[in-house]
């Protein structure tokens, strides 16, 4: 026993010695590396919600936007991850005391804490992703130095619904969400409107399972767990051949349910292009409803860093490219080219205002 331990230790030391034999780099002047790439002294910072910076959704996309903005500005950035809602206020506060100039926060959960900090620090700029910063519901932003970033994803989901209805051979498409938050249901509602528009144009009767306009199927959380899989299975069992799961990682449960069903069912992605962000989905992802959180965060943070911070709320639409429908990738051959053209024409019609998409963000 002792011998074995000694031998393992020896092997470990040897491995360490081998890997540690590299040549030392030339001596650098004190503080060389970091100060070389940093040309701006603005500090951009971000607080995540409990989902963390690797949530494959708004925390992650917002953080990528922050990093890109810091690269453009040549500045440093700092980030703090929250474990629960009692951390929000303290985390924003510790970024303020670290000397941050711009602070990015995400979601309705951080909204109140952001407003509180913004009112206490009128010199700083705040960017709030996916929430209007209106906690007293009077229709106005609660602090003059918060820029809300909002996304009218119903417009892109409308296109996805139209495409799905045209693609579906079963005449049934499905959707389900994590929890009935407005930022979730806006996808489902746009999707349903798109299907209905297809029906009224073509005289078909494609059905939407999982969302009736006011209520629908929800997993009760944003975890890829058995509940999410069962929810997906229930939708699939009703005979749909296109499914739209809305809410972070729950699409993984939908994929598992699709595999179990043994049928050919196409998945519609949300937030980012699933084909790129999760290559395992490449064979089943019809298209993705894109939400340009990264780009708009980058723009807002860069503007703030350059001293041209504009607190006017940003609303991502098809027109400004803040939301969009992703490419078809592997499904290009499977979708009728005429349908693709119709979707493109529909996009123009929505931008021109000829076709109206209803959502809580559309005036």
């Amino acid at each position: 026993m002792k011998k074995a331990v000694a031998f393992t230790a020896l092997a470990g030391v040897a491995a360490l010695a081998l890997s540690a034999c590299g040549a030392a780099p030339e001596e650098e002047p004190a503080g060389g590396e970091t100060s070389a790439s940093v040309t701006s002294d603005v500090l951009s910072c971000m607080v995540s919600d409990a989902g963390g910076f690797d949530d494959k959704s708004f925390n992650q996309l917002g953080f990528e936007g922050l990093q890109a903005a810091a690269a453009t500005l040549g500045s440093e950035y700092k980030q703090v991850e929250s474990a629960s809602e009692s951390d929000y206020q303290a985390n924003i506060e510790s970024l303020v005391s670290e000397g941050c100039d711009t602070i990015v926060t995400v979601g309705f959960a951080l909204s109140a804490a952001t407003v509180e900090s913004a009112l206490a620090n009128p010199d700083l700029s705040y960017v709030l992703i996916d929430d209007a910063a209106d906690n007293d519901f009077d229709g106005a932003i609660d602090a003059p130095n918060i820029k809300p970033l909002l996304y009218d994803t119903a417009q892109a989901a409308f296109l996805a619904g139209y495409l799905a209805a045209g693609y579906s051979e079963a005449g049934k498409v499905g959707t389900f969400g994590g929890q009935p938050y407005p930022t979730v249901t806006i996808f489902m509602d746009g999707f349903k409107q798109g299907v209905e528009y297809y029906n009224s144009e073509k005289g078909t009767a494609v059905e939407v399972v999982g969302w009736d306009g006011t209520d629908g199927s929800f997993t009760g959380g944003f975890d890829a767990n058995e509940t999410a899989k069962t929810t997906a299975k229930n939708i699939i069992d009703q005979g749909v051949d296109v499914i739209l799961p809305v809410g972070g990682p729950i699409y993984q449960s939908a994929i598992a349910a699709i595999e179990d069903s043994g049928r050919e069912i196409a998945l519609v992605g949300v937030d980012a292009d699933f084909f790129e962000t999760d290559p395992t989905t490449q064979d089943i992802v019809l298209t993705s409803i894109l939400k340009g959180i990264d780009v708009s965060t980058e723009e807002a943070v860069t503007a703030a860093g350059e001293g041209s911070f504009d607190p006017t709320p940003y609303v991502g639409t098809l027109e400004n490219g803040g939301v969009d429908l992703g490419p078809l990738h592997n499904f290009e051959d499977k979708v009728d080219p005429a349908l693709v053209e119709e979707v493109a024409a529909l996009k123009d019609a929505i931008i021109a205002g000829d076709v109206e998409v209803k959502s809580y963000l559309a005036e």
Partner: protein
Amino acid sequence: MTAGPDTEHEPTEGRWATALREIVRGRWTVSVGAVVLAILAGSIMIAFTDERVQEASVYLFARPGDTFTAIGQAVGGAYSALFRGAVYNLRAEDFAGAVRPLTQTLNYATPLIAAGLGVALAFRAGLFNIGGQGQMLMAASAAGWVGFGVDGLPFPLHLLLAIVAALAAGALWAGIAGLLKARTGAHEVIVTIMLNYVAFYLLSYMLATPGLLQAPGSSNPKTPPTPESAQLPSLLGDRFNLTWGLVLSLVAVVVVWWLLNRSSLGFAFRTVGENPRAARVAGINVPRTTVTVMLVAGALVGLAGATQVLGAVTTGFSSDIDAGIGFDAITVALLGGSNPWGVLAAGILFGAFKAGGSTMQASEGIPDEIVLVVQSLIVLFIAAPPLVRAIFRLPAPGARKRPEAAGRRRAAKAAEAADKKEVGA
């Protein structure tokens, strides 16, 4: 109550009870040792995960100085950030700004102390209260509901009513577990864990249903803010977040100390905890004591829920208002040796970890996980007192041998006497 002849034999219970007692009644030296060891282990993790250390270690033998400088900077930076975020900010412009981190620590410590007392009290009566989360959520719901559901009450009354509602809800939720244990023998660990789920989903439902806890005019699962008449007033003025909730927690420490060491009820709690069969022989109504313990423990955890909603998060809360405090409280109770003063110290230490963790992330880019690892290691080392004693060469406590069945009652009494001495010292 008359005690019948003892016919049941549960050979495992004795062993588990002994293990539990040894864990929760470890000496304070073991607690301090565990903290020191955990911080050392944390340093190693910080050093290994630091990028500059990784870069320098590639040429460790060519220029070892670089690696050690990098390690020093990483570890020193981390713990100085912890100190700056939790105790005293040397970089602040004025004194108020400098002590602000300390108030933040006490702010985080407030619910941890209260909930830690709830868990510790149950420990002393031999009950594992894993239901802190559920008890906190129910207490928070009650406090919130009274807070924004009841209109027109003036300030101190409204606050008082909200606190009482929270204590009652926490007590009720824990009381269910106590009653089931007393009446049917259902194990409190399982019952309290299940009640956590019930409370969580109940709160989620109430948050998503208009007219219950959801803020009117919103469709997000979040409550309206707590009105000012139900908020705990601030303790040190508006510049600090610290509220009178801390005072409530401190009062709770004294009350629990008095209860455990100076009251006959507390004597019954401890006797049942030491040896339920002996307690029964001595004429203590064990089932009733079990229910009472859980009621009091639940009320203490409920106080933590109240300070969260009425003091810490007054802008409206959602279903993670418990912030993991229900589980952290178990650690706090273990670290504090299930003694009220120990819980107070452990609660402040954990509050410091929480407050400093934020600054560690913000200024040094150390992931929050490291702080959590240090916390978890503390529990691990506390659960293994012989390991800590071996490392620090502490003497093993002498009178730890468990005498066999015949001598149990005498041993229990001896332990009581030893307790009294400890407290008196």
